[in-house]
């Protein structure tokens, strides 16, 4: 079986190489059949990789412990679902998963465009398959998923049972978090391939942007989902009560997300004004390379992280791929600059264009700061031969102001006029929202909130939320006045008319919710307490008392549960059972926290085990205000993105400003 799997991977590698050569040669020699056969190779690769993946998954499920991968990442006692997720639990399997997803995406792209973009498609196929070739080199020759365990004499041997999947990963969000992130990571190959294809063929216009808009949005949605699932997992599983730690691998997933977000915004500039063309190509390429870089960061061991896979030589392959890819892209962009000329110029600081510009500037700055902070030990090691790391406070001190500025732009950007705007019209649009914001934070300040960043954040959140609500209200009121019906129906109709615009507003509203959640961090309460059974303690408004320890065991782990009776302001709110587990196969302890989630605040209880003398329980208790708003915000963002993806009722043709000449020519034309 494992031989068939390994063979399938090897064949897929040959097909990928063939596909790259075939499509480029077919295009240059003008042989349509060669191009077609290169495209068919893409389907074959998918079939081959599906076979390989199927065999690996079968090995994991059936417990074929002759396979090194299965022995290292699965065991008999694990629930079936986690046996399946072991597919991406380790280095080799996750690379196969990457490759398989890429094959799936490539297949969809090739099928969708089988009659479109015939001049550009060979290059698109070639780019996709070059990336595929790279990953297939890794799994066919470097990190092989189908290695078998051998004794010193060379005989295959069956270990009988495996080491098991890391218990931290045995949690439901971990079932979907890696696939979501990978879908996001891998998906960005497609817009990149189209951008490069259009550069190579010197396409006029923005056809690559129109074709890939949906792709970008979908992959952005997957990335967002993946990142937030990761945050939710950290919060619910890791037991330290946070959702984000600026860990190198978290950062690696955030970097392409930031540039993707910048891209989603600056694309509008190109579509509507024909501006920022070079910039967009740069952004989409940066995003793609950051995706690869993220994969590299997770696997090379150059930085310390929770997520890091074992250190291996695999990093060098990534460095080569990145270097060659980036050099090629830079060369292409430089030689095609004349095709990427801007059709309009910036006219005023107070304009929609300018807000897009600053949005991009600040997003890129934040991306750079994250990258810099992540690679700081590497950089200092190279320059000063001393490894110096920067910690959470660095990231927070840079990213918090950036985030607040972005929030301001989120409110201002969508309402400010194109080309130029006046102070008067700004007053008209923003006076009420700003007053609302200031009013809310004044009330909070009076109530005793003294954290400046928190106050600014709440002001801006209210400001943005009110601008969005007013936009919806104004539009819906106009429809209601014309067509009758109630306000809600009018709002639905309004959204349906321009899904992109109103979906976008909804995404902004979701981000506002998330910011409210993030701001709650400023008011966290934490305590670590050692208590004897029955002893009371308290945190915030909560009074807590422990009960008697319960213990037990199953195939997978030994557990200790500590009942904690809780009451809030004197009223009982029930008993919580935080749990401490010791996974048997992995010999790894793990805490299962109990969280009482609420819209205003979460009570978070972690039983960290018994103290050294075994008499007292060590409990970490936290109160996290507003944390639920992050998850609420996610659902709003998701809904908004889905609305953006649905087609508008009336196909909108955007009034596009074309600059035909300088002012006096304009005047003559008008005469």
């Amino acid at each position, binding site marked *: 079986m494992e031989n068939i799997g390994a063979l399938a991977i090897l064949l897929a590698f040959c097909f990928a190489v063939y596909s790259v050569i075939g499509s480029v040669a077919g295009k240059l020699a003008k042989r349509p059949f060669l191009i077609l056969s290169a495209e068919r190779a893409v389907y074959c690769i998918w079939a081959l990789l599906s076979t390989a993946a199927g065999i690996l998954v079968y090995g994991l499920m059936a417990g074929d412990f002759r396979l090194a991968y299965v022995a290292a990442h699965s065991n008999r006692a694990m629930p079936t679902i986690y046996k399946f997720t072991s597919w991406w639990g380790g280095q080799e399997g996750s690379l196969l998963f990457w490759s398989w997803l890429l094959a799936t995406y490539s297949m969809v792209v090739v099928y969708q465009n089988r009659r479109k973009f015939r001049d550009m498609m060979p290059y698109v196929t070639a780019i996709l398959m070059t990336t595929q070739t790279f990953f297939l080199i890794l799994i066919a020759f470097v990190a092989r998923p189908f290695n078998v365990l051998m004794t010193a004499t060379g005989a295959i041997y069956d270990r009988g049972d495996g080491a098991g999947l890391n218990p931290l990963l045995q949690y439901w969000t971990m079932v979907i978090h890696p696939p979501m992130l990978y879908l996001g990571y891998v998906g960005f190959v497609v817009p990149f391939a189209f951008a490069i294809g259009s550069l190579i063929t010197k396409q006029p216009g923005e056809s690559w942007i129109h074709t890939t808009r949906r792709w970008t949005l979908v992959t952005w949605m997957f990335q967002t989902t993946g990142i937030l699932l990761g945050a939710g997992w950290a919060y619910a599983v890791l037991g330290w009560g946070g959702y984000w730690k600026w860990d190198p691998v978290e950062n690696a997933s955030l970097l392409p997300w930031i540039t993707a977000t910048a891209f989603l915004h600056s694309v509008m500039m190109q579509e509507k004004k024909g501006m920022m063309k070079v910039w967009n190509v740069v952004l989409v390429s940066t995003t793609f390379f950051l995706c690869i870089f993220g994969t590299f960061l997770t696997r090379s*061991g150059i930085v310390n992280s929770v997520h890091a896979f074992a250190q291996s030589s695999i990093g060098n392959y990534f460095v080569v791929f990145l270097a060659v890819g980036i050099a090629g892209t830079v060369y292409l962009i430089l030689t095609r600059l004349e095709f990427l000329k801007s059709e309009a110029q910036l006219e005023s600081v107070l304009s929609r264009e300018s807000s897009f510009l600053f949005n991009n500037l600040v997003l890129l700055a934040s991306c750079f700061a994250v990258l810099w902070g992540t690679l700081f030990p590497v950089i200092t090691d190279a320059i000063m031969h001393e490894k110096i790391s920067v910690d959470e406070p660095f990231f927070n001190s840079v990213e918090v102001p950036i985030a607040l500025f972005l929030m301001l732009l989120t409110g201002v950007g969508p309402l400010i006029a194109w080309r130029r705007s006046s102070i008067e019209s700004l007053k008209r649009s923003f006076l009420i929202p700003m007053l609302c914001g200031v009013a809310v934070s004044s009330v909070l300040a009076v109530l005793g909130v003294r954290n400046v960043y928190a106050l600014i954040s709440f002001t801006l959140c209210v400001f943005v939320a009110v601008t969005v609500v007013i936009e919806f209200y104004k539009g819906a009121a106009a429809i209601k006045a014309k067509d009758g019906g109630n306000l809600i129906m009018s709002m639905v109709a309004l959204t349906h008319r321009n899904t992109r615009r109103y979906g976008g507003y909804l995404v902004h509203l979701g981000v506002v919710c998330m910011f409210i959640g993030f701001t709650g961090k400023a008011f966290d309460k934490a305590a670590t307490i050692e208590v004897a059974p029955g002893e009371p303690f308290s945190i915030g408004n909560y009074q807590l008392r422990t009960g008697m320890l319960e213990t037990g065991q199953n195939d997978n782990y030994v557990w200790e549960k500590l009942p904690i009776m809780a009451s809030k302001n004197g009223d009982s709110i029930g008993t919580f059972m935080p749990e401490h587990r010791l996974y048997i196969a992995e010999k790894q302890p793990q805490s299962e926290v109990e969280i009482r989630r609420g819209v205003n605040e979460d009570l978070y209880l972690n039983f960290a085990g018994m103290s050294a003398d075994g008499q007292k329980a060590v409990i970490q208790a936290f109160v996290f205000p507003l944390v639920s708003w992050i998850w609420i915000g996610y659902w709003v963002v998701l809904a908004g993105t889905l609305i953006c993806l649905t087609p508008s009722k009336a196909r909108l043709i955007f009034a596009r400003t074309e600059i035909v000449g300088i002012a006096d020519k304009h005047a003559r034309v008008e005469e």
Partner: protein
Amino acid sequence: MKNTYWKFGILITAIVGTLTWLAVGGITQTKTYYKTIPELNAMGDRARDTNTRVSGYVAANSISRNGRVVKFTMTEESKRLDVVYDGIDPLPDTFKDGAQALADGRLQSDGTFHAKKIQAKCASKYEQKPTMAKPDPGSHAST
């Protein structure tokens, strides 16, 4: 038109300048030097003014607990370092005799190391595991 570009230039410089200033401030505040015990000793007086992350192995039978304060000895290449930890977070379960540990903190004038954060990796674990962190406050294993 020229005027507009000036304005943009000034604004962009202002933004980038502020961010650089924030970044530099953040770096000076939080930078932590990775050191082994011999390297820490070699730093001399400078070690007392800088945050360091020292790596080493927990010496056998050296862990003593007194309420929240934990004392232990780290060793590396026959050099020893006495560490005092009194942080908020409970120590990771992987922290035990022989474990590879990372201590974040500062060297005190009496030669002991005052740690604010301890990370530990169990020495018996073999390398291929995907993640080796312990579900614990900020204890990110050094894999």
